[in-house]
């Protein structure tokens, strides 16, 4: 049957709109949802999506995509392909399912908000297709993971993770709520389709597919690259919206791209970085995380920004420098705090893997090697308790990721430190200056307490590592452990590291101890990779406080030394014999501990 060419009718059909007469325009498209701002109402008439698809075309294409993805799955289900996959690789898939499946569901609502409150009928039309896309992505991600549930209970977290208070889930919710649910739909279109879906999801869904296929996980590679074909289309809602916004309010356009890009980059350093550079088996790695990010984000996305007449974000050099460090810090942190995740992180630092890391990241050995050497010594000496946490990293009030992971040890420009801020009498801590600045600009809409704040507020009981894990929803059967039972460390056997264990039971005391009031501090120990919560007593001497901080680090991630400890507060060395109360150390404050030279 001959059909009229799409070009002859589609633009007219999709631009059908009506003039409101029974209700006010503002009641139908309220500013807080529609986000008109400085844009005049008639500017929306020129909104025109470049990737044109009619509904019949949409249905036909989606049917073909679904048939393709599910028929591959049906064939592979009968094979033993899954059982032969590498354990490290399986963790990539587990992490992905938990971190992504219900974010796809959140994106359904983001698309529906644009379908309802978008100011052009063409845009609303395209957003309806976007909502159908994201429904497919939710379903396929849950369904593919569900089939694996019988093989491993960690796959249950495909459905569970996003509804728990697990720390990465909290970080993901904070970022994605800020991208999809809090803002008006003009901001959503620039944040989600333009910045996130054209900039970042390509790395997780297309680049990672290259590693997946090489690792033999045909099903996963097929699923994610199929999903991304939808993204390539509905992400095109961003461009036309951005063009109109730039014309009338370029500062707003630049700002929402800048903040979304930063938050996305922080999240990808824990989601995608470790998957590509540590969990994917060495011979299967197509490129390093940094190389993939350079290809897809630094190259392709920045070309796009320039094409729209926008600048690179103000923190660009810091972001680029972070491609060398953030995800290595994140991997080390995730591995050390492995019971707090729903996948089994592969250590990924055998001598051969270290050679590869050194080759791809010339300062890796200097910055991260010494910490891994302490861990390797403990594994090989049977001191496993020293490779497991007794407290929690201090978390950033914006990205909710550990403070220190936006820098690295032995890094002059971006060191491991907190960027604090006191506002309305409350102490906030940030992993970086950009996180602090974004929080400052958006502070009226950001009210998610971090896990540390919830712990100190008494919401997590008992306030022990076990209590925190239970509160996060991590039952013993799914808590992460090393993917390969620490085999990678055996190749170092013979090397020894002296250990000096200190044992503390509670992370935060549930009631004041008899001899002093608790003083929770954001503590940093020299050469460590993160800052963490340590609860001092105001009656402790500064020397005792130093030992409490050292107990969480020395012999665990930093090698012991025959040297005394010093505490620095705002750059000055505190005398060891005064009490914490006398010293000026305050609750929620930053304390630096290091070796006496």
């Amino acid at each position, binding site marked *: 049957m001959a059909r009229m060419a799409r070009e002859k009718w589609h633009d007219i059909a999709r631009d059908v709109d009506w003039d409101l007469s029974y209700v006010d325009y503002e009641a139908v498209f309220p500013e807080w949802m529609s986000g008109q701002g400085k844009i005049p109402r008639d500017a929306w008439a020129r909104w025109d999506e470049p990737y044109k698809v009619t509904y019949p075309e949409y249905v036909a294409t989606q049917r073909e995509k679904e048939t*393709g993805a599910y028929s591959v799955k049906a064939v592979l289900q009968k094979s033993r392909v899954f059982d032969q996959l590498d354990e490290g690789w399986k963790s990539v898939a587990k992490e992905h399912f938990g971190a992504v499946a219900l974010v796809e569901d959140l994106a359904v609502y983001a698309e529906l908000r644009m379908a309802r409150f978008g100011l052009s009928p063409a845009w609303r039309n395209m957003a309806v297709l976007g909502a159908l896309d994201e429904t497919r992505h939710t379903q396929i991600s849950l369904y593919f993971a569900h089939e694996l549930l019988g093989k491993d209970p960690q796959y249950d977290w495909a459905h569970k993770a996003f509804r728990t208070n697990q720390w990465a889930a909290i970080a993901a919710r904070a970022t994605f709520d800020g991208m999809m649910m809090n803002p008006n739909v003009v901001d959503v279109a620039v944040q989600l389709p333009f910045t996130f879906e054209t900039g970042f999801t390509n790395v997780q869904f297309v680049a990672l*597919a*290259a590693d997946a296929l090489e690792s033999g996980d045909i099903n996963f590679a097929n699923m994610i690259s199929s999903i991304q*074909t939808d993204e*390539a289309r509905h992400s095109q809602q961003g461009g036309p919206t951005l063009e109109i916004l730039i014309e009338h309010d370029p500062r707003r356009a630049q700002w929402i791209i800048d903040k979304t890009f930063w938050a996305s980059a922080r999240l990808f350093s824990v989601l995608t970085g470790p998957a590509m550079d540590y969990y994917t088996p060495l011979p299967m790695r197509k490129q390093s995380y940094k190389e993939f990010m350079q290809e897809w984000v630094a190259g392709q996305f920045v070309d*796009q920004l320039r094409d729209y007449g926008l600048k690179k974000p103000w923190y660009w050099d810091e972001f680029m420098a972070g491609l060398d460090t953030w995800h290595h810090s994140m991997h080390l942190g995730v591995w050390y705090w492995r019971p707090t995740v729903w996948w089994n992180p592969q250590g990924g630092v055998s001598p051969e893997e270290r050679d590869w890391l050194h080759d791809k990241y010339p300062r890796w050995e200097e910055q991260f090697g010494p910490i891994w050497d302490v861990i390797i010594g403990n594994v090989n000496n049977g001191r496993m308790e020293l490779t497991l946490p007794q407290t929690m990293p201090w978390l950033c009030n914006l990205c909710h990721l550990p403070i220190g992971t936006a820098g690295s040890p032995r890094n002059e420009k971006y060191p491991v430190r907190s960027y604090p801020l006191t506002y309305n009498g409350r102490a906030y801590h940030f992993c970086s200056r950009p996180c602090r600045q974004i929080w400052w600009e958006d502070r009226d809409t950001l009210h998610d307490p971090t896990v540390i704040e919830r712990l100190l507020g008494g919401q997590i009981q008992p306030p022990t590592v076990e209590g925190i894990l239970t509160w996060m929803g991590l039952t013993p059967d799914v808590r992460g452990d090393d993917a390969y039972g620490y085999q990678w460390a055996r190749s170092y056997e013979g090397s020894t590291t002296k250990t000096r264990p200190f044992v503390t039971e509670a992370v935060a005391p549930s009631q004041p101890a008899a001899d002093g009031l608790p003083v929770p501090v954001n503590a940093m120990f020299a050469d460590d990779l993160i800052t963490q919560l340590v609860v001092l007593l105001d009656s402790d001497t500064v020397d005792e406080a130093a030992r409490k901080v050292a107990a969480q680090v020395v012999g665990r991630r930093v090698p012991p030394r025959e040297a005394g400890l010093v505490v620095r507060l705002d750059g000055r060395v505190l005398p060891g014999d005064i009490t914490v109360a006398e010293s000026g150390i305050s609750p929620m404050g930053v304390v630096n501990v290091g070796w006496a030279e």
Partner: protein
Amino acid sequence: MATGKPVGPVLRMSDDADAIIAAIVDDNPGQEVTVVDRGAYTRVSGDGELRVTRASIERHLGRGFEMRQLGGMMSAFAGRIEMTSEAVRWLLKGQESRETA
């Protein structure tokens, strides 16, 4: 990448990817078309602008093809896109950044 402003599709693994790439090469005479194969995806790039027509794709496939079907094969693309039922263009419009760099 040899080009200054690389644009073009990123094709997922499929039986028809080679035919699409051959059609792109045909439809862009005088353009240097770069093809980077990473297994699960193949990045096809030209400088500033690249196009492909339904007629060329049909010629290389040896059967009928609807332009919408390209949507199922294209996981991403560099540049902006313009799509009709007869042809697709990937391009950068070349606005100069306000940045002085």
